């Protein structure tokens, strides 16, 4: 009979194994990071009439109906066309009667053209699908992001996200603000 003792298992690498496990779980557990389009709702005002007069040429009207058809200004458009149209509308360098009014402002000794009154008016039906609504919101945001990037490249030679806070505020709040106005939804009654 073999009475030799079995040698003890070398457990010095056990620590490494559990370290690897530990690090693996540290990396893998994404705490369900959420992404989203962040928006600020307008405060509720019941009594005060704050309707402001805005000239028609300063408003870019986007309508989405209950069949998810998109109308920009006066034509029906595909979702893919929206970004270009919004960019063209907001761009401070476009000129013409149908584009918003521009005003030159002196910033740091330079005259910079701005269109501070331009706004997108987004209106949807109660029957519009949420998917289309998010697509439209996304395209509007994308257009403004692209314009901000172009402007900061032109003025500062950097992308918008790489700018310091003050210049970012100038471009983000003054030059190209996220001016999306959402109208109270219309309910189109079927007759």
């Amino acid at each position: 009979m073999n009475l030799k003792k079995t040698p003890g298992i070398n457990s010095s690498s056990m620590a490494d194994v559990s370290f690897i496990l530990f690090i693996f779980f540290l990396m893998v557990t994404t705490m369900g990071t959420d992404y989203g389009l962040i928006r600020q709702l307008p405060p509720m005002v019941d009594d005060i009439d704050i309707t402001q007069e805005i000239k028609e040429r300063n408003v870019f009207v986007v309508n989405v109906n209950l069949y998810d058809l998109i109308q920009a200004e006066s034509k029906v458009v595909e979702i893919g066309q929206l970004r270009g149209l919004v960019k063209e509308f907001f761009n401070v360098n476009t000129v013409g009667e149908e584009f918003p009014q521009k005003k030159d402002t002196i910033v740091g000794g330079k005259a910079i053209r701005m269109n501070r009154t331009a706004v997108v008016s987004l209106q949807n039906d109660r029957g519009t699908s949420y998917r289309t609504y998010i697509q439209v919101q996304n395209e509007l945001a994308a257009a403004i992001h692209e314009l901000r990037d172009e402007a900061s490249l032109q003025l500062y030679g950097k992308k918008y996200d790489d700018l310091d806070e003050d210049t970012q505020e100038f471009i983000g709040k003054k030059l190209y603000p996220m001016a999306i106005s959402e109208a109270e939804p219309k309910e189109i009654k079927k007759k």
Partner: protein
Amino acid sequence: MAKFKKDVDKETPAIATTSLPDIIFMLIFFFMVTTSMRQATVMVEQKLPIASEVKKLENKSLISFIYIGSPQKSYQAKMGTSTRLQLSDRFATVEDIQAFIAAERESRSEADQAKMTTALKIDENVKMGQVTDVKQALRRVGALKISYTTLKGEKVF
């Protein structure tokens, strides 16, 4: 004087590492137990839309979630198939939002209350009418900072 002769050759004994894995395992268990996911079980369908211009939601503890969608299969017998609202872990109506937001505010410190965000997790097939009702309710209670939770992707349409 052989008695006091130093053992010069003797090596320092190796540090016993046999308990190291136990320590690490304890660490793992500690983190496993303490990371509470703090999320309610979602009882409605959640097929989120895709968007590209998204921002990461910071500070999860300051976010209150509102879920909208049609009830999942196992709840359909009780709740039907039409679109429902879910607040924390029960089905609710738009009228309950006011109390829900008030309770969420109550549980945060005063300094944090201003930074609170409401994340709307809405199924992409929901009609905007319901979304608008919720938004109006949020405006009424003054919870103005919202986020439309979406998936992150480049291919939006």
